[in-house]
């Protein structure tokens, strides 16, 4: 779709605004989110689907349960865990997608070489 004349912002501005919103949601809003069990956990508890359940191998980890080990203020703890998660997903995502991009570039580069050889 063509860009619109006035509404368009630069990719840089868009990315900065997007990451700022994600960080705000994770740090400011997430600590106030509902702490009730989610749909699956509730149904599992009601119907006994969780009787074989055991804690995750990383349940004792420093960030388990979206809480930072040693930070006692739960609001800050959840918020900081959120910021770490936003940063970690962003970093892992960019590394993965840069790898995918490189995969394509390598393929693009090898295609004409093969054509030349043949």
């Amino acid at each position, binding site marked *: *779709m063509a860009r*619109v004349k006035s*509404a*368009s*912002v630069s*990719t840089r501005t*868009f*990315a900065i*605004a*997007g990451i700022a*919103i*994600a*960080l705000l*949601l*994770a740090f400011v*809003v*997430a600590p106030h*989110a*509902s*702490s*009730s*069990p*989610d*749909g*699956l956990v*509730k*149904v*599992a508890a009601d*119907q*006994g*689907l*969780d*009787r*074989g*359940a*055991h*804690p*995750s*191998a*990383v349940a004792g*980890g420093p*960030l*388990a*349960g*979206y809480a930072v080990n040693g930070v006692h203020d739960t609001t800050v703890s959840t918020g900081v865990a*959120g910021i770490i*998660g936003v940063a*970690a*997903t*962003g970093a*892992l*995502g*960019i590394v*993965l*997608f*840069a790898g*995918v*991009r490189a*995969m*394509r570039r390598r393929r693009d580069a090898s295609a004409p070489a093969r054509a030349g050889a043949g």
Partner: protein
Amino acid sequence: MHIPDGFINGSTSLAAGGVAAGGIAISLRQAAKTLDDRRVPIAGLAASFVFAVQMLNFPVAAGTSGHLLGGVLAAVLVGPWAGVLCVTVVLSVQSLLFADGGLSALGLNVVNMALVGALGGYAIFLALRAVLPATRSSVALASGFAAAFAPPLAALVFTLEYAVGGNGAASIGKVAAAMVGVHVLIGIGEGAITAMTVSAVLASRPDLVHGAATMPTMRPRRAAIVGAIRKITAEDHAAFERVGS
């Protein structure tokens, strides 16, 4: 919707891991075909955003909450294949760092939320978009409705996994009814958040919405009309000038 360890038996979890790995491999190949340099940071941003919004549990019924799964949102923004990868990144970080979703259940969770969410959800999105008028609001509307279907769809697939290898005694019918029932409610929230986010991106950078890029938009038609009006005006003007001189 994140399945913890031990809800579903080992062999079923392993089989789901195989399906997930296959889906991820196909997604990597397909995403490589369309991904350009500009979209690399945007796809990373989409993963971050889905992570952040997944933390926002909203109440849906007495003592029950739900949150966005984000498959349709990611798929509409960056394309279905890159969308699978975005949600997979989110699920991996959640299970490894935050112990949200079991490590042995990661394959199950990738199937339910990344594959079913992004690919199944995007198929619903395309079907809805095809029957709606070719406008930007249709893109937002179609993504919202498709996103509303994603949690109940994931709930059905979970029920299937439970039927194959669940460690519980409840009947499949009862599990299906309870799971779909609560996830229809969660879907309302998922749909609203998805439609709002897609609208916001459409308003600022419509070219970054994959689900709008392949659509024959109103734009050419509008351009044709504007062009025709300009032509008529110009001819009028020319005729007026001829009369005047």
